[in-house]
C-alpha cells in the first residue's frame, strides 16, 4: 500500500540531533484522517484511498458532502483528497481512521500543497531572471526581462517565453523530504526542509514516489 495522509502546516523551526547537528524542520499536523471512500479498479477504473481531514460544521457542508460523509458515519470534512494506489489497498476499509503512525516505517515523503500567492510579479521574482545592470547607461530598466526573441524572422514571439504575470497560489509538490520524527501523541510529523504554502495551509503528504 502507498502510504499517505492529509494535514496542515504548523511552521518551521530547528531541532538538534544527538551529535549537535542542527536540522531545519517543518512541523506538520498530520491526521487523523478518515477514509471516506476506497476507489477500486472495477468501479472507478483506478485504485485510490479518499481521505478527509479537519471536520466541517454540518450546516456549512452541502447535502452531497453530508451524504458522502454519512455513508462512513463521519462528519463532513474540510479537506478531501485521494491517495493513488498501484494495487488494491489492503487492510484499509471505508470509515477507518488513519493516524500519523502510518509513516513510522517511511524514510522520505512528498508534500503537496498550494504555494503562497504573490500576485502579479515581474520576471526577476517569478522566473529568477537577473535583470539588467545597475549602471553603465542602463536607464530605468533594471528589473526588465530584456529581449523576448528575434525580430523579423520569426516575426512573432516564440511560445514558452517567460513573462511577468500571476505568481504563486499554484499546486506545488516537494519531493523526497526526509522524515525526521513521527510524534503519534500529538499527531505531528517533522520533515527536513520547507514545504509549500502558508502556516495553517492544508497539505497532502504521501510516501515518496522516487525509487
Amino acid at each position, binding site marked *: 500500500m502507498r502510504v499517505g495522509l492529509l494535514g496542515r502546516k504548523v511552521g518551521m*523551526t530547528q531541532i538538534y540531533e544527538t551529535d549537535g547537528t542542527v536540522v531545519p524542520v517543518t512541523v506538520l499536523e498530520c491526521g487523523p484522517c478518515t477514509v471516506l471512500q476506497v476507489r477500486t479498479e472495477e468501479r472507478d477504473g483506478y485504485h485510490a484511498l479518499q481521505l478527509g481531514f479537519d471536520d466541517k460544521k454540518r450546516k456549512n457542508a452541502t447535502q452531497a458532502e453530508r451524504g458522502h460523509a454519512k455513508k462512513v458515519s463521519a462528519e463532513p470534512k474540510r479537506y478531501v483528497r485521494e491517495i493513488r494506489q498501484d494495487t488494491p489497498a489492503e487492510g484499509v476499509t471505508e470509515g477507518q481512521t488513519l493516524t500519523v503512525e502510518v509513516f513510522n516505517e517511511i524514510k522520505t515523503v512528498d508534500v503537496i500543497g498550494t504555494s503562497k500567492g504573490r500576485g502579479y510579479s515581474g520576471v526577476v521574482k517569478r522566473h529568477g531572471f537577473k535583470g539588467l545592470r545597475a549602471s553603465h547607461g542602463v536607464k530605468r530598466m533594471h528589473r526588465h526581462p530584456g529581449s523576448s526573441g528575434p525580430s523579423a524572422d520569426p516575426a512573432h514571439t516564440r511560445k514558452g517565453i517567460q513573462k511577468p504575470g500571476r505568481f504563486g497560489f499554484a499546486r506545488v509538490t516537494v519531493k523526497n523530504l526526509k522524515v525526521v520524527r513521527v510524534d503519534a501523541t500529538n499527531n505531528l510529523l517533522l520533515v527536513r526542509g520547507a514545504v509549500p504554502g502558508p502556516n495553517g495551509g492544508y497539505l497532502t503528504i504521501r510516501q515518496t514516489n522516487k525509487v
Partner: protein
Amino acid sequence: MQNHLLELVEQSSMKASIPKFEVGDTVDVHVRILEGEKERIQVFNGVVIAKSGTKTREMFVVRRIVQGEGVERKFPVHSPRIADIVVKRSGKVRRAKLYYLRERSGKAVRLKERFAGGKATAAEAKAAKAEKRATRVAAKKAKAEAAAAKTE
C-alpha cells in the same frame, strides 16, 4: 503568539535547565569534542560579549585572548555539544553587546565585578520592580476596601 504545537517541538529540543549567565560574565564553556571514537571535553574560557535568539535558536558569544590575539566563539545554548556552562566571575556592564571590548587590549579589557546582592541585572531589576508594584497595588486596594467598609 506562537503555535503551541511548534512550541512543543521546540521544547523537545531544548535543555531542561541551563545555567544562568549574563553578558559580561566570565564563563567556562565545556564543549564535547569527538576524537575518532573517544569523546572528550574541552573548556573554552572567556567573557560573554553577546547573547542572541530565543528558545532553540539561543546563542552566545564568548571572547578570550589567546597569545595576544582575540578569539571569539559563538555557541548554541541548547546544543547537545555544550556539556556545561560555569560562571567564574560576573561582570558589571551597561551594554547588551560588549563589542567595544574588541578595540581594547590589556588592562582596558577588564570589567568591574558584579557581586550577588549588589546591583541587580536588568532582568532581576525588572522582576523586583514588578513585585514592588504588585505589593503597592495590593496595599492600595486593601486601603480602599477598608475605607469603603468604614463609610458603610
